[in-house]
């Protein structure tokens, strides 16, 4: 049994060793996920600690069939960070999203600083790329994106879904930047 599976099962079964082991194995990426959104080290640390402890105590939030524990934890931390950002900084964030990209360059470059990601984004249609960048890099909700682009919310949701599935195909083992 590989180490990740042992850890995942320990986490599901709420074994004490798995709590610390999960943090040791994935703490850096969890902290990074929170920091990329919140941009504040203390807020990011609070977010990681709260989410990790909550998920471990619940136990049933994750199941091995879902796939990578690392991806599950990272998305949970990022979603909590987004929720906190939206609750506490709605006005400031909206002002920021309306600024030109160059004014928020640290956020944008922080997200696409690898050639593979830039290449993958190039495989999306222009509309898909624009939408995923607004959602992922600018942390906008699909309602905000719909409003900004003057499109129905349902259209934006479908486009986000198809864009992420396309990215998954490219990122998956065996996927290539030439795919599709």
């Amino acid at each position, binding site marked *: 049994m590989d*180490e990740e599976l*042992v850890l995942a*099962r*320990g986490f599901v079964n709420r*074994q*004490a*060793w798995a*709590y*610390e*082991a999960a*943090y040791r194995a994935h*703490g*850096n*990426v*969890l*902290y*990074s*996920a929170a*920091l*990329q959104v919140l941009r504040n*080290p203390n807020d990011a*640390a609070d977010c*990681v*600690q709260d989410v990790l*402890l909550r998920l*471990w105590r619940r136990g*049933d939030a994750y*199941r091995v*069939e*879902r*796939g*990578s524990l690392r*991806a*599950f934890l*990272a*998305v949970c931390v*990022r979603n909590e960070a987004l*929720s906190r950002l939206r609750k506490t900084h709605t006005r400031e964030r909206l002002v920021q999203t309306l600024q030109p990209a160059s004014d928020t360059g640290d956020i944008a470059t*922080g*997200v*696409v*600083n*690898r050639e*593979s*990601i830039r290449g993958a984004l190039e495989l999306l249609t222009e509309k898909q790329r624009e939408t995923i960048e607004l*959602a*992922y890099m600018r*942390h906008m*909700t*699909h309602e905000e994106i719909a409003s900004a682009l003057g499109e129905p919310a349902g259209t934006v*949701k*479908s486009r*986000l*879904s198809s864009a*992420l*599935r396309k*990215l*998954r195909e490219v*990122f*998956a083992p065996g996927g290539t930047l030439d795919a599709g």
Partner: protein
Amino acid sequence: MLDDHIGENAELYALGQLGDLDASRVERHARTCDACARRLGDAEAAVLHLIESGDVASEAPPELDRRVRFAGQPPRAWIAAVAAAFLIGLLPWGVTTLRNPTDASGSSQQLAMNAMLAGHFLHTPFAAVIPGAPNAKVIYPREGGWLYVLVGAASQPIEVAAVVGNQRMPIASISPGAATRAAFVAIPQRVSAVQLLENGAPIATARIVYASPAP
């Protein structure tokens, strides 16, 4: 969505686009539907790839490390659980190969039960000597007399040794596995440290400091 498959909400969930109600529905459905769990996992993997492509800290702050470790160790709760397990006979005596040179009759267990119920006992974590050493703790009474060693998931067989004076005495063997293992050893000598060993080499050490002076 309700009882239907989660569909595109898998990707929207992974991108943090769902409100609390829809997110809860996705999580609930994915707990029972393998196909949707896989789709959700695929979406989460794609987002993880985006996260890892951004600014990734080389290490989380030490303060967060300390807080996470502290939050995961409610000592009163687990000590009470160990004591309760003694009382109702749940302790997994069979999971270890116990070599107890001083007491194989069960009175050592009685000693531990009495000490936990009526006396005071201490506990200390093992400090890893090498990276990847399993999490482990030792519980022992303030005045000495026995050791209760708990070892987390281990990939290799582990020997437990007590350091008495200048000598290292093997006292138990822990078999590898994902489950937390336990070993109880009655030992009349004053122990200065307990060590975990792999292939004869120490991988973790716990220092034993008794609260009462040696008789």
